[in-house]
């Protein structure tokens, strides 16, 4: 049996998506930019996805730019909008995904005044620090909607109105970008923001396709130059298959959003109940999104735990998949103030709408059992 509990890393392609993209491989293979009917036929698929996304996001079709995924969307949102000839303040949080964090670190090196906002023990931005950080030379605020390592949810709409208030009072134009990769499909797109990144493969679409919502009136430049595709902001022949998949997957996710949130919350509370009974177990994620649970099995190195679980067919993550290649402990767990012992033994469990409660429960029990076994082996060293 396989128990996949790493949905925050990536997801299986939904059968509806597989069905919907089948004919794009050998039949609808045209280049959407071609003038002939083969091109027009292909272009329809892109337009269809764009309509779907615009509807879900509550924006216009020309506000959706398709990209290769979350990382590109985040890079485009930041590097494509900040003024080229004016250095100012950039505000982000200390728990961002590397595709945001690394961009800001790069910009800090270029002379921008980058503020990394601290978070509380729940991973939520300290609101008064955020308010005080807004200055007249601030160019952009960029924070994630839902954190990928422990599910913390940021008060995006409150921040948006704070920024709006500041902009009106000081006649400034601070942009607000939100990395929505982990939230997309589960939460509605927050009101009052300028840019929103999303990705297909986290919601049963294909890897290699995502998008960026750009509110009309936002001045944005391309990162690569070429043709006129995606309003000349993201040139290059469109990834029709990925974009079509993204459209279908988004539609599916939002159609059953409410019922799946209930289902995910139920799994989360069942898991928490099981883990809380064990004294050597600490739950690191609190009041966050329902599809991610971060747990420390004290005394068991996360990598060893991960491989031992894998031998039982259980797939989880230590930290987030992107940072587990680096040997340093998770920057997110550090930022929420966990001890080294908690960070070294942290496991991220993430699941989806198709995860059934019984298997989640049995996996939780199996985890406790394996952790205990491993503690015995490690005890003497």
């Amino acid at each position, binding site marked *: 049996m396989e128990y996949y509990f790493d949905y925050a890393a990536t997801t299986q392609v939904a059968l509806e998506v597989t069905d919907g993209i089948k004919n794009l491989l050998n039949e609808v293979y045209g280049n959407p930019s071609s003038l002939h009917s083969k091109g027009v036929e292909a272009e329809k698929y892109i337009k269809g996805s764009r309509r779907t996304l615009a509807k879900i996001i509550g924006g216009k079709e020309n506000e959706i730019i398709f990209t290769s995924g979350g990382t590109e969307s985040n890079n485009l949102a930041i590097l494509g909008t900040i003024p080229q000839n004016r250095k100012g303040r950039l505000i982000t949080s200390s728990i961002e995904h590397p595709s945001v964090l690394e961009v800001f670190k790069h910009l800090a090196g270029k002379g921008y005044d980058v503020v990394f906002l601290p978070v509380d023990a729940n991973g939520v931005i300290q609101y008064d620090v955020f308010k005080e950080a807004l200055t007249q030379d601030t160019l952009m605020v960029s924070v994630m909607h839902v954190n990928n390592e422990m599910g913390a949810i940021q008060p995006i709409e409150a921040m948006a109105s704070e920024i709006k208030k500041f902009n009106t009072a000081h006649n400034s134009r601070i942009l607000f970008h939100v990395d929505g990769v982990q939230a997309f499909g589960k939460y509605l797109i927050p009101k009052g923001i300028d840019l929103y990144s999303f990705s297909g493969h986290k919601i049963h679409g294909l890897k290699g396709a995502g998008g960026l919502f750009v509110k009309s009136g936002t001045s944005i430049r391309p990162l690569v130059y070429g043709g006129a595709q995606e309003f000349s902001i993201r040139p290059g022949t469109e990834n029709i298959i990925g974009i079509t998949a993204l459209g279908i997957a988004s539609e599916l996710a939002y159609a059953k959003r409410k019922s799946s949130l209930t289902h995910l919350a139920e799994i989360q509370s069942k898991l928490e109940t099981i883990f809380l009974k064990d004294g050597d177990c600490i739950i690191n994620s609190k009041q966050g999104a329902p599809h991610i649970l971060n747990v420390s099995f004290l005394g068991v190195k996360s990598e060893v735990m991960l*491989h031992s679980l894998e031998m039982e067919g259980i797939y989880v993550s230590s930290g987030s998949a992107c940072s587990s290649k680096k040997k340093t402990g998770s920057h997110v767990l550090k930022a929420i103030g966990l001890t080294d012992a908690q960070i070294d033994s942290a496991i991220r469990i993430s699941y989806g709408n198709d995860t059934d409660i019984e298997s989640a429960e049995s996996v939780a029990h199996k985890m406790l059992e394996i952790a205990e076994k491993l503690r015995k082996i490690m005890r003497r*060293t």
Partner: protein
Amino acid sequence: MRDLILVRYGEIALKGKNIRVFQKKFYKNIKKAVVQFNDVKVIDQFGRVYVECDSEDLELVIQAVTNVFGVVSVSPAIRVENDIEIMEERARQEVERLRLEEGAKTFKIETKRSNKGFPMTSPEINKRVGGYINQSIPEMAVDVHNPDILLTLEIRNWTYMFSKRYAGLGGMPYGSAGKGILLLSGGIDSPVAGYLMARRGMELEAVHFHSYPFTSERALEKVIDLGRRLTHYTRTLKIHSINILEIQKSINENCPSEEMTILSRVFMMQLAQRVAEEVGGKCLITGENLGQVASQTMEGLTVTNTNVDIPVLRPLIAYDKVEIIDVAKKIDTFETSILPYEDCCTVFLPDRVVTKPRVDKISASLELVDREGLIEEALARKEMIIISEGEVLTR
């Protein structure tokens, strides 16, 4: 268009009565190195090897041949009949080509006359061919000290002309010196140790130890990637992958914790020796390097040595780390070696390790575990990976 490559070897030529054995091995190894190319012919003629190939493949064939151990250098060459008029005309064409393609302005002709039946002496040939070129290409001047083109004419049963030389790796034909078992860890040192022994003609077969699930599956992938690199020289490589977690657990439970590393090391050597017995290996090869880590002190090496019966070859024993890294970069294993996956040496790493283990104490500690049972059990679950020409054949 066809091209001809002339292949020179070094040390093999110093061999006595058994020279043919080495020459044959060398010839076969070159054949294997170029078999991937279409329409390639390897010719073994009077102790000289020539490779004929399609001109389109010339650069890649040269690269493949220079990676064959025993090759000192290679030169793309032109072959003409031993006729002075043909020779001078072809030499002129070649000098003219180099003038146009590389902007050469000066040249020199150098003749080696192995075939003493040719009626002119070397200086006479130099003068005649050089004079001819000098007259027919006014833009080219002779420079005997520092010419842009040094065109060598080698007169054997044919005349070979060449102006470029690509260095080989030297060494002895792979497989001409018996088989050794390489302890391949995934670090920087062991692939280099394997490469150096292979260059001396030793056939390699590798053993890799892991502690899955305490070590990552990617650690094995990394070792396989290193193995792929080694097959650029060895063509094929077998890797025996052995899980020693049960052994480490047993040591951890029963023996003094500061002896964890050295005891694991003893088990690895004994397991490797068992593999050697099974596959006909004559020695063990390790990347050990004096003083590098706790188990590589003279005392540590003494302990591991006393626990095996066959020789343990340690080609890196006196290298400095930077020298090892230089070779690792040259054979392109360095980037893979430094990927950060936990290996089985670090999983149970205690706070304090014994740096001067004593043979008697280690022997006593070994009595505390079921040595034979653990070894048998580990060998029973051994897996084998066969890599050929950079591709994994079986897992």
